[in-house]
């Protein structure tokens, strides 16, 4: 093994943990302020009532649930993608997985906040939790919101574990190369990892099990989120396509978020040797696939509505196609398909910059998609006398800003604490490339290095 290269890798990948640059500080300061703004807005809402939002009758959900669905969607970047890549043994995944899994955990944490934030009485959010109590009160397990509770909890727990397990060897590495308080923290976190052959073996096995279980959980999470709408009998919500449509949309926006995060990390922490154009190329192809799938689902969804010509469905349809929501609708189509698909399809454009631009479009487009699923339906209830409209207030915008800032902040802190590219997996990838002989025997660590 090449000691010098090994040390170089350690230096590069642990740089983010060891050194604190101005870029990082500025990011933390700005995102911290954004978070404070969001918290202040939420405090104001807590104090005054949810009326400080732009909600009304009939539009009782808008930015709150849009953000919820959006963040839960983003969370499908990591665990799901990394699990699929792991299970299929895609070798190029190695520098990407942790970065993706961290997105999952933080996006989920933020997404899970919105159902609490959106409550009329957020201080009694724990009533949604099934806990034994003296009054014998339980939540209603028939409610999709309770399904959400279970699904998000399972997914969050699974994702945390899935993020943590492959992190253990790197925590041990950090433990052994740091001192003082940091050493103590990493000692606790690394749980006595010694790197024995047995431990490596069990870690591999456990990660494999996790990867297999987490895939259906991830699929179920966004399916259940879609069922929040599909279980309702409202026009353009009560649709069987919603489960796969949402899952596809979630992976779509998740990959886009991952590409943006990777590009940012690459730039800030000089990881050019680790996050290479090939990763962006591969993820870009995946994004292209998802864009096509997204278009297919969207087309199916709208075509059936248009063809069915059921008046109530049609009213919602019209409001999106030619009514007040049409600018948003066409912005969505442009952002999710018309712009990214050609960009990603043309090899010349599938560069790092190209994929980042496409991803930015996709993230915006998918946010709009969620908004367009929620608000037009709600503003066109069956009894047309009650049709309404919606306009957000500064409070909702501040809370949304806060959620984005919180994500950036959590990510920045995470990067400060842990290597964002898995050190051991990267080395392992190199090793399996340089020593093709024995590596081919291994099942999990089948080599197919990214380079």
């Amino acid at each position, binding site marked *: 093994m090449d000691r010098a290269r090994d040390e170089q890798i350690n230096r590069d990948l642990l740089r983010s943990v060891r050194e604190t640059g101005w870029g990082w500080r500025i990011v933390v300061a700005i995102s911290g302020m954004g978070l404070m703004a969001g918290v202040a807005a939420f405090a104001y809402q807590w104090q005054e009532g949810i009326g400080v939002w732009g909600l009304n009758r009939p539009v009782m959900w808008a930015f709150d649930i849009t953000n919820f669905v959006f963040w839960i969607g983003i969370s499908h970047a990591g665990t799901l993608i990394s699990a699929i890549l792991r299970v299929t043994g895609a070798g190029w995944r190695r520098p990407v997985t942790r970065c993706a899994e961290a997105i999952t955990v933080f996006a989920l944490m933020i997404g899970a906040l919105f159902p609490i934030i959106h409550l009329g009485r957020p201080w009694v959010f724990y009533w949604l939790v099934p806990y034994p109590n003296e009054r014998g009160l339980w939540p*209603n397990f*028939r409610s999709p919101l309770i399904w959400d509770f279970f699904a998000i909890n399972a997914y969050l*727990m699974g994702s945390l574990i899935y993020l943590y397990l492959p992190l253990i060897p790197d925590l041990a590495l950090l433990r052994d190369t740091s001192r003082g308080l940091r050493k103590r923290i990493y000692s606790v976190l690394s749980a*006595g990892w*010694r790197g024995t*052959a047995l*431990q490596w*073996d069990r870690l*591999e096995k456990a990660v494999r099990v996790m990867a297999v279980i987490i895939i259906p959980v991830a699929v179920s999470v966004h399916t259940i989120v879609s069922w929040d709408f599909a279980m309702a009998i409202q026009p353009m919500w009560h649709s069987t396509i919603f489960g796969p449509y949402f899952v596809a949309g979630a992976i779509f926006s998740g990959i886009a978020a991952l590409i943006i995060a990777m590009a940012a990390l690459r730039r800030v922490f000089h990881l050019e040797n680790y996050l290479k154009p090939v990763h962006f190329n591969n993820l870009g192809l995946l994004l292209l696939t998802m864009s096509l799938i997204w278009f297919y689902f969207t087309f199916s969804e709208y075509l059936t509505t248009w063809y069915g010509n059921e008046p109530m469905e049609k009213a919602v349809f019209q409001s999106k196609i030619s009514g007040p929501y049409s600018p948003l609708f066409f912005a969505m189509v442009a952002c999710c398909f018309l712009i990214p698909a050609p960009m990603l399809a043309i090899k010349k454009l599938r560069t790092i910059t190209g994929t980042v631009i496409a991803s930015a479009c996709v993230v915006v487009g998918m946010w709009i998609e969620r908004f367009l699923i929620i608000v037009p339906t709600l503003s066109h209830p069956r009894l047309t006398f009650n049709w309404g409209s919606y306009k957000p207030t500064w409070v909702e915008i501040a809370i949304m800003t806060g959620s984005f800032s919180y994500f950036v902040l959590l990510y920045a802190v995470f990067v400060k604490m842990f290597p964002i590219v898995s050190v051991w997996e990267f080395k392992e990838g190199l090793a399996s490339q340089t020593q093709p002989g024995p590596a081919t025997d291994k099942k999990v660590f089948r080599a197919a290095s990214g380079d």
Partner: protein
Amino acid sequence: MHTKAGAFDKVNEATMAMNRLRMEGFTPKDITMMSSEPLPLDEDDEKSRSLIWLFSILGGILGGVGATLLTTLASKQMNLVTGGMPIVAPWAFGIIVFEMSALGAILAALGRMVYEARLLRRGVGAEYGSVVAQGKIVVAVDCADETRAQNAERVFASCGAEMI
């Protein structure tokens, strides 16, 4: 009894040392190899079989049964009709059962993995020194007596190890 350990730069040196140690009569149980990355070694038939899969299945069953009980009993206790649905609504509860099964499986797999990999235990891991962090491969061997310790030292030296 004390432990001897040698640090190797190369995988084949460490493998060679281990083979020789075994020839010296050390059991696989006495020999521990530590590295900063998983090593592409041959499958070790002496290694005990892992029950992580089994445990995760059991955990899944446990989670599923727990969820079934929770949803059914709690709903029966509330005994309130909503939307004309039955009090015990298998279609709806099935979703919770699924999620809880998955969670049970994950937690059980984690627990079993922690147990099997001997994580979260006090007093082990002292041998894991900064040398491993530097990318070296450490082979440690438990020696019952001085003779065996000398044997081990000899093997390490012959394979080009740096003694720790």
